[in-house]
């Protein structure tokens, strides 16, 4: 989180400028996003199975 450059000024920006650029945050965001996808698929399958069983 926060501006990824030391000085809060756009004139110093010369590359990646997204939230968390240059830190470990992109890795964590990506892992969390992947885990959410897997958990949602498992939960979705459970709900659908319940409906089949009924």
């Amino acid at each position, binding site marked *: 989180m926060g501006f990824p450059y030391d000085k*809060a000024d*756009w004139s110093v920006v010369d590359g990646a400028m997204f939230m968390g650029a240059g830190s470990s945050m992109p890795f964590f965001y990506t892992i969390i*996003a992947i885990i959410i996808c897997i958990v949602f698929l498992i939960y979705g399958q459970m709900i659908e199975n319940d409906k089949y069983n009924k």
Partner: protein
Amino acid sequence: MEEKIAELTAKIAELEASSQVTNTMFAETYYYLSIPLMVLIHAGFLAYEMGATRVKNVLSSGVKNILAFAFVIPAFYFFGWWVYWAFPTGISLSMGPMEISGKEYADAIAWGWGESAQYMGPNVADNASGVFWGAFALFAATTASIMSGSLIERIQTVGFVILAVVLGAFAWVVAAAWGWHADGWLVTQFGMHDFGAAGVVHAVAGFFALGVLINLGPRIGKFNADGTANDLSGHNMPFTATGLMLIIVGFWGFLMACMILPGEGWSWSGSTGTTIYGTPMNLSALSFNILMGIAGGIIGAWLLNRDPFWMMSGALAGIISVASGLDVYFPALAFIVAIIAGLLLRPAAKMLENFGIDDAVGAVTVHGTIGVYGMVVFGIFASGFPALFIENAPTISILGQLVSAIVCSLCGFIPGYLLSLVLSSLGMLRTPEAAEIAGLDTTKVPAQAFPEGIPASAQPAE
């Protein structure tokens, strides 16, 4: 030698002029093509709204939607464009620090008469005004269309058109001047950042619709005597889902038009695309984050509700939830923010229903609630980013985004509520009960949606 240098200098000047022509033509074409893409938003709203309507009202819903487009465009020409340039610093109408705002500036470029008329019509020396105005006029029509769906099946046509004109050519324009303009006081004082208009378009339109819905009341049969709600399903879910997909296609035009191209007299930068605030960005950022936002919104909505209407609304909510920061979100983070927006949709719509509000297509939730959510969440993750391209620019903060989201919501709610109250007292808001029961098509449309019913196919040839 001197002759050679002179010859080379002339050739360089010629090349520079030719490259500038290409740049200018590209910039003009870029905004011009965003306009028909945004017309797809209206094709989408038309299909979505008609599909969500019961058969007895389907054409009157279409007529209403088409008229919103038709009246908002000239209204935006007559005075909306002037409001955008005059109001950024607030009601003082004074010029802001970038010197592109205030009454004097707006008077010089945005009226269709006098000296300023040269910028409001064909002018071979002006490749920018028409395409910028066109893109903004489509933003305006989109804002009015957002409200349209929530009011279906019980609103009078002229009353609705008046509401659409005030929303599309004034209410959202004031919010845009304040928070979607480099001189806007919400930007210069509070560091507001709203690249894709989650606040200035979606929150304004959603809360304007809420203000109208309070005075308009629910459709007959929506609520039982004990307060429980009935489902008044539209006649054509596939049409509605297709309409929602068309809106999403149109959003690409809307969002590309939010970027200011480089290298022109009116550009913020000579070498890179920028946001409306002059901060650097490019189309790659949009591609990453729009797609991840759509996907996240659909997945989030699917988990709690298998209804394709809400899943496609989830796609819209996904984009809206990350719209404020499409220029700087990390795609995986945008995906997570959008999933939460998709999860919020159904419970938020249910809550509104529990208050006795009949929002036929969930516009208050998808655009209003999610618009505010997107603005505030962006403030959490983007705190510390400079809000403008200038030195010592104000920075984005949670408080600034929260204040801005509240201001945008009020810019919608207050005029929506007050104007609909006036229209109601004049008998111009709600259709008579008998007409609503019989069906609005029977009352006011001289055509039939399905003259042969919705028949089974003819037998195939042998």
